[in-house]
């Protein structure tokens, strides 16, 4: 599904070069529920952004479904994100002028589906994430947990191959965070969608069936729950 081969990423902050990733190699198989863990500044978000085609690697290669993302142009990358990828962000990133329903159906509208299909799929996923009856609310009218559920529904409604969640529970209290993780794990099992999420929270790491530990831009350890 995803292959990351010796990827490096440098950022230039003024005259200083920050090596966010220093040669990461990783393979993620279809249907995996994998957590990228590590302290702040270890390169978790950078790695997710590169896999999600939101940023470009300085060196190395990333393949999604055996296609090198570096060879794609802006338009092709947009199409790849539209069809295959779903994102869940730490700060939810919902569009404030759209209701919960509209935020979720947004992804489907981009796919050019019929109004009826958009409605059916949106209502179904909102029900599934526990937001039935709240579809007309605006983000400001929802709690943090509910907003993150909208974000998850938005990522999943288009049935992507891969969902990238960047610290999805960081802005939530521990109970809500746990609920969200259970929801994600359940959806992973039910829809067989590959999940890669980053965290530095031990409780979150426990949920992962595979754990990749990052430190200073390098993978320092990999654990598998089954193993």
């Amino acid at each position, binding site marked *: 599904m995803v292959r990351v081969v010796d990827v490096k990423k440098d950022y230039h902050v003024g005259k200083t070069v920050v090596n966010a990733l220093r040669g990461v190699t990783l393979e993620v198989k279809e249907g995996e529920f994998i957590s990228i863990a590590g302290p702040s500044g270890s390169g978790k978000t950078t790695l997710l*952004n590169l896999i*999600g085609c*939101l*940023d470009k690697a300085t060196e190395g290669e990333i393949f999604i479904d055996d296609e090198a993302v570096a060879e794609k142009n*802006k*338009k092709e990358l*947009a*199409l*790849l*994100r*539209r*069809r295959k*990828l779903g*994102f869940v*962000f730490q*700060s*939810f*990133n*919902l*569009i*404030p*002028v*759209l209701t919960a329903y*509209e935020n979720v159906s*947004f*992804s489907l*509208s*981009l796919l050019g589906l019929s109004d009826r299909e958009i409605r059916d799929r949106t209502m179904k996923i909102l029900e599934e994430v526990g937001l039935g009856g709240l579809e007309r609310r605006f983000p400001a009218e929802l709690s943090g947990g509910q907003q993150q559920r909208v974000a998850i529904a*938005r990522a999943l409604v288009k049935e992507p191959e891969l969902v990238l969640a960047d610290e999805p529970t960081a802005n939530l209290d521990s109970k809500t965070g746990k609920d969200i993780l259970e929801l994600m794990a359940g959806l992973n099992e039910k829809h067989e969608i590959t999940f890669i999420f980053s965290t530095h929270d031990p409780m979150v790491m426990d949920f992962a069936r595979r754990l990749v530990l990052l430190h200073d831009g390098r993978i320092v350890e990999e654990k598998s729950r089954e193993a």
Partner: protein
Amino acid sequence: MKFLLALAWKNLSRHRKRTIITAIAIATGIAMYIWVDSMLLGLEKESERNLVWYETASAKIMEKDFWKNIDYLPLKNSFIPEKDLIGAVEDSGFTWTPRISFLVEMYDSEGSLPVKMIGIDPKRDESVFRLKETLSRGKYLEKGKDEVLIGKNLARDLHVDVGDVVIVKTRSRLGAFQTMDLLVTGIMDCPNPQINNGVAFIPIDVANRALRMEGRVTEMALHFPEWKSPEKKVAELQRKLSGMQGTESPGGKNLVVESWRELGKDYVAIAEGKRGATKIILFLIFIIAAVGISNTMLMALYERMGEIGMMRAMGMNDREVKLSFLLEAGGIGFIGSLIGIALGAVLSFYMVNYGIDFTGMIGDMDVGYRTSGLMRGAWDLKVFVVAFVFGIVASMLVALVPTSRALKMEITECLRSEL
């Protein structure tokens, strides 16, 4: 596209405060543009009308040399409006009136002033000019009476009023000095300041007798309804006159027909010059409007960088993101332009029907335009259309800059902005 339109509409209707503020900025610029244009166009139209109604008529027939020396009004270059000439004029669809224009020195008890005096046929003149309507005191001229009609500013400068007698000194056609005692029979308050300031009118038969004209006139003033575009009609008549070889008309070939544009070329030159200044004023208003629009649009867009980032992350390509913001900006432009032209119409309506009186500010100052202090507007439908389209296009153009800038940023950079 349907989805993008719906998204633009949602953004417009849900960012209501921002939409209203931006639309008001656009509306103000557009209304100002329409208002100033109406005022300037009104000024130009009224000037042209006042020039034709009170000063030049639609056109004039004169002796070539009279026209050449128009500043001196040489009476020796006069002509008799013979039958064939009149026939040619009337056959061409003109109404006409004879005039004798000459220079005089007009005396009051304290001194004298140089004045342009015009002998007119009181009855006939009404078919070409509208002098009678400008009479503010006294009565209009009567044939055969030694009377004079003068403008209110000239009357003030000469310290005379209705019922007073003024002495006029001039030279006859043959060069002999001639004086006349003329009774001030009426005072005119003409919207054309040139008439108010330095022109006096007497009956043409009185002028004919005193100046030894023997039926000659210095000009035939012509009127035709299509005076706004006089060129074709004037050229047609000129061709007719040039072809006249008859003995009856002394020098048919020496007569020239000049349109009001030529006769009032001092005004036309000023108007042309001021048109440039007008464009600068309108351009400045355009800049003010554009800055207002771009400012609010820029603020609105910069605070939505996160949203742009999210749209891109979800798979919208650059073209779609740009289009969604352009549609939104176009929507604001549409609302603002609609309000702007409605406001502009109200302002233009006021200017056309009531106007603004600048008399207190400019007084009798001659600023080149043939208008009084009351400035009236004119309807200019073309500008309404232009302003409406401009409002929409300008809004979209100014939205293009920050959107393009946001699209040049990395998606991750956009996402770091708060939603």
